């Protein structure tokens, strides 16, 4: 989108650039303007607006959708940091609505009930940038090919069990390292195996990194969880149910922010982990029936 004055909005650099500015920070799930304000005051770099936190979606069941526009507007009005909001996988009209409401990023999210089991949203045609979940490098590159400007590991949302986020971060990291190590003439088959466009595979092999920011998400409940994800190579952290489903959201939010910045300093993590009250009640991912595993949504 260009104007006569040579000024361009919604370019790939501008879309990816906002994610660069969020690095080293914590993005917190909120369902009300009051929660959004608490998150901002605790040092969140952005908030994620959704109708129910993943733990409640699990507990209550039913179809989970985009949040009420009134609620999103209320959250946009309550805080000055970026506001993200979730649309269902493939639901391009929910995404158009979120763009029209003025959100700063759309999360095409497996936490909500998918609207299309074959196609993700064609994201390149939107003015607003998208973040998408991934369990491995191939999935991440497929989302980038569709126009995503930021990737997050999926983890297993709403469980407080960080093990899947760990698996996804380690998988993505080791797949990138492998691409950077193999001969160039093996990249074609690597692209086939990853199910990802060759050009993106070759770019990752050349640079040794994803071309966009990689956050982590799904099951982060404690300051130590956040710090571990940063040490595994995440650029930043999404915390969903972990804050507002815990005993003392204000203290826990601020503690996770500090643990993310000082992820390599166990003294700081020990200090901020004291006296936080109860963490969210967790569910072991292994105990979840396969049909209830959100990370399997999207492809």
């Amino acid at each position, binding site marked *: 989108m260009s104007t006569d*004055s*040579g*000024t*361009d*909005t*919604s*370019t790939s*650099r*501008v879309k990816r*650039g*906002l994610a*660069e*500015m*969020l*690095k*080293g*920070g914590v993005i917190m799930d909120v369902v009300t303007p009051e929660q959004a304000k608490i998150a*901002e*005051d*605790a*040092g*969140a*770099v*952005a908030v994620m607006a959704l109708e129910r936190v993943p733990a409640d979606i699990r507990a209550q069941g039913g179809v989970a959708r985009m949040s009420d526009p009134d609620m999103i507007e209320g959250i946009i009005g309550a*805080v*000055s*940091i*970026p506001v993200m909001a979730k649309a269902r996988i493939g639901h391009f009209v929910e995404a158009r609505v979120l*763009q029209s409401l*003025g959100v*700063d*990023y759309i999360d095409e999210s497996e936490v909500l009930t998918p609207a299309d089991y074959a196609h993700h949203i064609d994201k390149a045609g939107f*003015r*607003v*940038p998208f973040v998408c979940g991934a369990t491995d490098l191939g999935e991440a590159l497929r989302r980038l090919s569709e126009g995503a400007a930021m990737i997050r590991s999926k983890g297993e949302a709403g469980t407080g069990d960080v093990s899947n986020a760990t698996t996804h971060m380690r998988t993505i990291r080791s797949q990138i390292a492998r691409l950077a190590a193999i001969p160039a003439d093996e990249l074609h088959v690597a692209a086939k195996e990853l199910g990802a466009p060759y050009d993106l595979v070759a770019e990752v092999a050349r640079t040794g990194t994803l071309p966009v920011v990689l956050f982590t998400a799904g099951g982060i409940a404690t300051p130590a969880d956040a710090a571990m994800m940063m040490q595994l190579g995440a650029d930043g952290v999404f915390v969903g149910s972990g804050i507002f489903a815990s005993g003392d959201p204000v203290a826990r939010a*601020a503690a996770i*922010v*500090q643990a993310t*910045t*000082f992820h390599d300093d166990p003294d700081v993590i020990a200090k901020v982990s004291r006296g936080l009250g109860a963490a969210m009640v967790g569910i072991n991912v292994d105990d979840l029936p396969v049909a209830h595993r959100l990370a399997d949504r999207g492809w």
Partner: protein
Amino acid sequence: MTGPDGPLVGVLALQGAVAEHVAALAACGARTRAVRRPAELAGLDGLVLPGGESTTMDLLLRTVGLDEPLRTAIADGLPVYGSCAGMILLADRLVDGVAGQRTLGGLDVTCRRNAFGRQVDSFETDLDVVGLDEPVHAVFIRAPWVEEAGGDVEVLAAVEVDGGTRPVLVRQGRVLASAFHPELTGDHRLHRLFLDGVARG
């Protein structure tokens, strides 16, 4: 390119686009140090405050006790360059901050946060800069602008908005600030401009 003789420049590393500034400074021959604790300010020849969220940085600056040492260092003449959120941190006066948000100060300007609007209004454009022959390609992301500048503040670049002129690159003594992100483009001329000031001491 980082030589043993280059100036030692800190990059505030509480949150934000730290790595990009480190890379740009290193490409210009500076030695760099990530700064998250007061002790890490010792011996610096200059400091960069990166883009990120100014509210998050303000909170962490106070939590770790970096705010007062930084105020003192800037007041004592440490060369500083702030981009975007860094410009906000350097402004003496802030409009549209959150309740209770503080800045470090050092730059006699009133800065308006998120002045250009939300993310869909973020943009990139070519910008004429005083003292540079070719325009700088500037990336503005939920960027601030300078609403008012004191008499000692040089305006090095500005953009036209709704018929008005808004400064987006300013300098006052050893303090340099941009509303945009030269660290995202691979053009290191503004980092060199800052390092020239560091070298003059």
